[in-house]
């Protein structure tokens, strides 16, 4: 009998301890706790530490993530204001702002993500519809409004989902892509662009090289032509100077010069095979019959 009493006492003790333990709630830094009484929320606890409630099953503590959470969308195709399609992958950093509201209307993370996804896609769609493709990508930095768009989406989403007790801290685009066909076209265009640039380099290089070569040839010809011209002048000077020297000299005795020159000419022009017809009266033949010679000296008799 005593033993049965001891056991019952021990069991009762254990049960009481159990109930006492459920009166304590340890709230972590990472949690919100909503205390419900038979399904109805009675208390919201945002501060960490030790708190009290009525024991189980009178009151139950429901825990929710207090930290900032991340939701990422898949790749989704959108249309910009100027009818161009773009594929966007985005993310939101969100947080429970009102635990009680969250408990009432959302309850689970899956539900929250569903709400976020729907709202996000709708808001991005409408934002992109008001922008042009050049607001997303352009070499003019002032045109690009990506950050502005991200801020607008954040603000708009916060308006919409405030009633769910959720707050968006930050929305961002994690990837921009072009639809598949467009990408292939882009590749082809890139190849064509590069080929054009390569051809330009080659052509320009060749053009410059040709120019250098032809200029070099031109200069070379110029140098030689100049030299030739100078040479002709020098030669001319030489000719002129020598002519002057000759003329100076010959003018001292012009008849002598003429005689010598003419005789020289005879030497050249009268050669073998030339026949000359001479008169017997010619000076050269003067002494041929011996008479003139004799008469000069006066010694020998004239008649033969």
């Amino acid at each position, binding site marked *: 009998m005593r033993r049965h009493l001891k056991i019952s006492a021990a069991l009762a003790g254990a049960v009481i301890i159990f109930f006492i333990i459920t009166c304590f709630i340890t709230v972590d830094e*990472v949690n919100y706790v909503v205390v419900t009484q038979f399904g109805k929320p009675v208390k919201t606890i945002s501060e*960490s530490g030790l708190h009290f409630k009525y024991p189980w099953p009178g009151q139950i503590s429901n825990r929710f*993530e*207090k*930290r900032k*959470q991340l939701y990422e969308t898949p790749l989704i195709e959108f249309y910009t204001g100027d009818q161009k399609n773009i*594929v966007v992958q985005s*993310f939101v*950093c969100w947080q429970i702002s009102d635990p009680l509201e969250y408990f009432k209307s959302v309850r689970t993370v899956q539900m929250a993500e569903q709400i976020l996804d729907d709202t996000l896609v709708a808001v991005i769609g409408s934002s992109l519809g008001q922008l042009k493709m050049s607001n*997303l*990508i*352009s*070499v*003019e930095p002032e045109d*690009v409004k*990506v950050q502005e768009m*991200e801020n607008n989406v954040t603000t708009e989403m916060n308006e919409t989902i405030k009633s769910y007790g959720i707050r968006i801290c*930050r929305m961002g685009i*994690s990837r921009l892509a*072009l639809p*598949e066909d467009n*990408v292939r076209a*882009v*590749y082809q265009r*890139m*190849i064509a662009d*590069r080929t054009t640039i*390569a051809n330009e*380099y080659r052509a320009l*290089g*060749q053009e*410059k090289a040709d120019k*250098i070569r032809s*200029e*070099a040839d031109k200069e*070379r010809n110029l*140098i*030689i032509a100049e*030299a*030739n011209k100078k*040479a002709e002048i*020098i*030669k001319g000077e*030489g000719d002129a100077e*020598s002519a002057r*020297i*000759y003329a100076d*000299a010959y003018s*001292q005795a012009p008849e002598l010069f003429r005689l010598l020159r003419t*005789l020289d000419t*005879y030497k050249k022009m*009268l050669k073998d095979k*030339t*026949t*000359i*017809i*001479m*008169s017997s*009266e010619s000076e*050269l033949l003067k002494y041929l019959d011996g008479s003139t010679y004799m008469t000069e000296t006066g010694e020998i008799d004239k008649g033969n």
Partner: protein
Amino acid sequence: MTADKQNEFRSELSMLRRSLRSIIIGLVIIIVIAYPLTGFYLIKTGETGIYIKFGRIIDDRIAPGLHYSLPRPFSRIIKVETGAVHRFQTGFGADLAKVDELESDLGPLQNLEYGSFIIPYCITGDKNVIHLKIIGKYRISNPSSYKFGAKNPERLAILMIQSAIIDCVGRLDVDTVLTSGRKVIQNTILESARKSISDLDLGITVNSIEVKSTRPPGSVAMAFKDVVDARSEAETVQHEANSYKKQIIPEAKAIAARIINEADSYKTNRITQAEGQSKKFSLFAEQYEKNRTLTCMRIYLKSMAEIMPSLQKVILESGEKGNNIDMKFLISDQ
């Protein structure tokens, strides 16, 4: 059972009960002593401790060393590596190893329907497409913000950096991104990352952002390389032309010098020759002045002596005798 056996059994049972009791008492004593000792904990160098009691942060900057706290489940110690520099990698598909891996699983990605979706790329401001890899280094600067601020701070940081990359690269042209823009991109993204991360209070500080590699997509890489080749070819061709020029001009100058030299020596020769000849003539003229007739005759006869021998001569009688010349006689002599 007999009475004896009952007695035996009872005494054995009580012995068992007694030894069981002493074991239990022993265990309780051990637990009572050992349990509080579990409150000791060690923070290593490079770590920071966060002391949490009943869920609340009491101290979030516990320095390295040996400390004591209430044992579990009353308190909890979280250790955070604040000393180490952590590293992350992000970007858009510049990891060639990953590409190879994917291609070995899925086949050549160019032919796949969603080839370009599987390997991410980044769009440049002039609607070209490139791959880009970024390495970031960061430190945990605020342990409690890091642990209790966001659920997945690293992933969040990486996504915000990707957003910064999209924004930055979307403003630049492809050549800048692939070549000279590296520094600009790094600085812009570092600044943007730091701001976003501190706005969200993630408790991490980014030390550096490095663009590890950028490359054009595989299918266009050849065309990009060809541009580089073309540029160096253009330079080579110009270089060759310049050496041609360097060679040809001195050659021309040498030829020019030669031409001038030849002309000079021609001039000198002509003048010298003229001087010689005219000197010779002058001397001769002096002699001629002394006795003209004699000199002339002498020259004349000397010349005739040279000329006449080789000529065919026909001597005719003078005009008084008559003008009839026997032509036959003439011709047959020839």
